[in-house]
């Protein structure tokens, strides 16, 4: 699964960092920063949950063939 985050939409809630700490972090400005771009297993499940909890619809997931 491929993941992208749109920093221009992000409102810095920190929800994604709490939900999928292996995938997201907040940069010094408080906006989302990706830790890794391609995921599998538990990280992918957590990232999917984080995307649904993002209050600003700033997280996008696309399935990817390996």
């Amino acid at each position, binding site marked *: 699964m491929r993941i992208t985050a749109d920093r221009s939409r992000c409102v810095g809630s920190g929800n994604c*960092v709490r939900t999928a700490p292996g995938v997201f972090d*907040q940069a010094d*400005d*408080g*906006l989302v920063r990706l830790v890794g771009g391609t995921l599998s297993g538990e990280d992918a499940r957590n990232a999917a949950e984080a995307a649904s909890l993002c*209050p*600003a619809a700033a997280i996008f997931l696309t399935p990817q063939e390996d």
Partner: protein
Amino acid sequence: MPDAARRTPAAAHPDRQPHDLPGLPLTRECPYHPPRAYEDLRDRGPVTRIRLYDGREAWAVTGHAAFRSLLTDERLTVDRDKAEFPDLVRVLALARPGRHHAMRALLRTDPPLHTEQRRAMLPSLALKRVQSRRPALQAAADRLLDGLAARPRTEPAELISAYVRPLVATGMTEILGLHGPDGSALHDLLHRHFDLVPPLDDFLRSLLARMPDRPGGDGLLDDLAAQVRDGRLTTEQFVHYGTVLVVAGQDVTISTIALAVLTLLVHGDELDRLRAGEVPWSRAVEELLRFLSVTSGLVRVALADIETSGVVIRAGDGVVLLNPAANRDPGVFEDADRLDLRRRHGNHVSFGFGVHQCIGQNLARLDVEVALSRLFERFPRLRLAAPVDEVPVRQGLVFGLGALPVRW
């Protein structure tokens, strides 16, 4: 679009009887359940017409999906300059408009201005920076609990003034970066004043003037002061942002913690699960936030027609989004009216949704978790000193307890 869904504002029907629509229920019959009449609203649909106390009509949102989609809809505004706002209660109407101009920052601005304001405050409220305050907050909790333990057990204690309020104030001073005398000054101010806006204005102005003399600070006010020195913020913005943060963050957090203590004491089986380590505190906090949901509702106005959940919200219509109702949506939460600390979910809307979602939520979670875990670990025999139905409550836009008498 079904015809029945086409509604016109009250003004167009001056002859309409006031009893043709339900009112906005604001009174809780039980401290830890939303007003029962929310369920009557839900029966009418996830987005339904209501009449406010002053006769005006508005839409009430009880459905979880509609709550989230409307709060991410740019056609709803929070800006009082763009639209006439519905008042939920008479008190607010009296307090309007200009007196609390400071309180318009963030809460009453739309993007792009809102984005700019929010970003100025974000860095110090990021999850990890907030969590780095945990040891300081725990130490403060333990000191307050030492004070409580030293009291004679013959008399009950009032837990809000002895513990909850000073602890939440400490969380705030930590985040703001106020230590020593400045921290004590803010504590004092929070305890002494009912209307916090004027004293906070004075406090923040004089603090900013002294800021250059206290370098090396690591809090939100230090971040903001640096932006004032860079010319990115004005003194006015510094004062307004600081004020909004303190005012928006105090009462809700105090109410949530006090109500959570009462709720856990009443739900002994759930409390036992926590004590036995079956449920981590962080998960319990999410369920308590969902279950208690102390804000009654969020208010918006439509700038254009919006079709949602089978109705059409017309441009100019007021919309009241009821967090406690969305948090009890039976289509999203199984057995929604039951407190179940084992529930795994993150999708409660107690902090709202969309660009205004609580900017202080990371601090709020830390405050609640530290307050509850320290208290219940320290006093395993903690109990209410009055029957639950005699504990005084404060009904209103933020539901809370008037006092919390306990024995330990």
